[in-house]
């Protein structure tokens, strides 16, 4: 008996603890709560969305403060109590149903979708959009859950993305700034490639940021119009790829472009090499001919000097010079020339030198 009593007591204590637990609940600073009593919303606990702000008056951002004040007003009109801030809250057991919503940034990630741009090009765009609950009651009544929100955002963002991309050129979805791209030096020096580049470049009216801002604004106004109670913070393109069937042509273009650059480098090399060789040959010829010129001049100077000196000295007695030089020339002219053959001469016995040999004893 005693054991049974104790068991009941323990069980009773446990039940009471559980009961206490089921009338108390805790919310954090980032949670919204919608309390329904027999299916009808009676109380909404709203996160201020600003850390540390536990009352509307504490919210620093004026827009957010105004939004919360508006929310409180609109809830009051519907006879719903709005509470701001985290903490422990009470509920009536059994009749009150508490639904907690995450007030933090949720991530909407669309499936990649094929869009056609204004210039009839296909692009596979993968967008993501962080969003958060701005009106917990409206959110609870319309989309009901984060899952439901994804489905609604799919419809809204997808159609807005398609609409805006359809009004933009492909390049406007790829680029962010509108300034034409300065190609690297290696390409701009070649008029052929620079010309090619000019043909490719289109005027860019605006960039990706502008397109996405328009998408975000349009999507937000849709969201507001449908009263979904959420706010899209940002729409961004995570990936934008070319469809597989277009990749091939881009690859072909890239290969052709690189081929041109390669060819340009090689022919530039040939051109430069030829120039260097030609210049070298020219310089070599200049150097050699200049040397020959100098050499001839040097020799000419020497010859002139020689002639002058000879004329000066020999001119003192031209007759003697003739005699003396002739005497010098004889041995060379008639002497053994080293080739074996001897010069034959017929000598007149009465010549100057021979007259003593056969003649009249030096008469």
């Amino acid at each position, binding site marked *: 008996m005693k054991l049974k009593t104790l068991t009941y007591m323990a069980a009773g204590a446990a039940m009471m603890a559980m009961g206490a637990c089921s009338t108390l609940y805790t919310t954090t600073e980032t949670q919204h709560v919608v309390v329904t009593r027999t299916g009808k919303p009676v109380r909404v606990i709203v996160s201020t969305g600003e850390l540390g702000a536990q009352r509307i008056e504490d919210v620093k951002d004026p827009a957010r403060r105004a939004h919360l004040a508006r929310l409180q007003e609109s809830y009051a009109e519907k006879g719903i109590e709005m509470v701001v801030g985290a903490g422990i809250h009470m509920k009536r057991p059994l009749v009150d149903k508490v639904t907690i919503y995450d007030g933090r940034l949720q991530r909407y990630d669309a499936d990649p979708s094929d869009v056609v741009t204004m210039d009839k090009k296909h692009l596979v765009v993968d967008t993501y959009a962080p969003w958060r609950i701005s009106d917990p009651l409206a959110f609870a009544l319309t989309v009901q859950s984060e899952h439901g929100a994804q489905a609604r955002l799919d419809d809204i963002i997808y159609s807005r993305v398609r609409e805006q991309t359809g009004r933009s050129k492909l390049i406007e979805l790829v680029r962010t700034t509108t300034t034409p791209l300065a190609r690297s030096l290696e390409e701009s020096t070649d008029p052929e490639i620079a010309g090619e580049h000019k043909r490719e470049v289109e005027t860019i009216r605006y960039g990706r940021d502008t397109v996405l801002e328009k998408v975000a604004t349009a999507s937000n106004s849709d969201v507001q119009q449908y009263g979904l109670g959420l706010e899209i913070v940002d729409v961004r393109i995570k990936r934008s790829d070319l469809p597989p069937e277009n990749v091939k042509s881009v690859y072909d273009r890239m290969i052709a472009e690189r081929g041109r650059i390669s060819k340009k480098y090689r022919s530039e090399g040939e051109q430069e090499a030829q120039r260097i060789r030609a210049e070298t040959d020219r310089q070599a010829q200049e*150097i050699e001919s200049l040397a020959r010129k100098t050499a001839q001049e040097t020799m000419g100077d020497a010859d002139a000097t020689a002639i002058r000196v000879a004329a000066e000295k020999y001119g003192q007695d031209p007759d003697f010079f003739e005699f003396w030089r002739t005497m010098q020339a004889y041995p060379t002219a008639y002497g053994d020339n080293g080739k074996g053959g001897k010069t034959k001469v017929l000598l007149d016995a009465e010549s100057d030198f021979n007259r003593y040999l056969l003649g009249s004893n030096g008469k």
Partner: protein
Amino acid sequence: MTRYEREFGDATSRLRNMAGRGDLSGKLITTGLAAVTGLTMALGSFYVVGKTEQAVVTRNGTYLETTDAGLHGKMPFIDDVEKVVVTEVQRLELGFRTLEEGDDGAAKYETKADEATMLTGDENLVMVNWTVQYQVVDPRKWLYASPNPVGLLRDSAEAAMRQTVGDNSIDMVLTEGKSQVQEASKRTLQQIVDKYDMGVRIIGTPLQDVTPPAGDVSSAFSDVQSAKEDKEKIINEALAYANEKLPAARGLASQITEDAKGYAATRVNVVTGEANRFDKILEQYRRAPDVTRQRLYIETIEQVYPGLDKILIEGGKGVLPLLDLNKEGSQ
């Protein structure tokens, strides 16, 4: 329900089961209940924050404090602790994943083609592998911005890099503009996460590998590289030709001019020498012209005659009678 409420619930239901079996004494149940409660209370009264972490403590859902590394006390059941790594720079890999950290630096990587492939501003495709280095500077914001902050950061990083690459030409991304791309992507990413108020600082978004798409495109790009090298090679060969040919020409030029100088010196010296010799001879000749002339003549004849085939002809006689003499020779 917080974790502690759950634990408490579990404990009470376990106790009820034990009691239901009825084979335990009441004393034991009471002791057990006290022990479990005590243990839960004790374990729930402190927590440890790791040396790279900070902890955000909430009491009944309201922010209480942020604590640093070490052992800290807390109120069981009502205090909730979430720890965030703050002092360490953390890293996300994009476009690739490290499969294996090699001990000797030989790590294995796997490229994620769909994540890495991007359109450049001149509508070319390029594969980019990069990392995001970030540090949580405000753990409270980090926890409260999003239920999945790392996922949001990853999406933002992809958007930022694609935006940056989309605004640059392929040559900028592949070669000279790498550092600008890194810097711009980092700036853009920081702007995005600031918009989301995530309490995170982007240290950098360094590019790891930037390559043209594999296959034919890649080989076309490497051919540009070898074309550049070919260009250098061809020019260097021409320069080598110049370096060989010009010194040779200069050598030849010196040879020619020096030869000419040599000729000039010889010519002047020889002629001057001869002239001076004549000068000296003339001086002596003038003292006794007839004798000297005679002597010079005889000396020359003396020098010349031994080398001649000589035939003496009597004075005034013709040459004809002597024609045969040739055969007999003469001395």
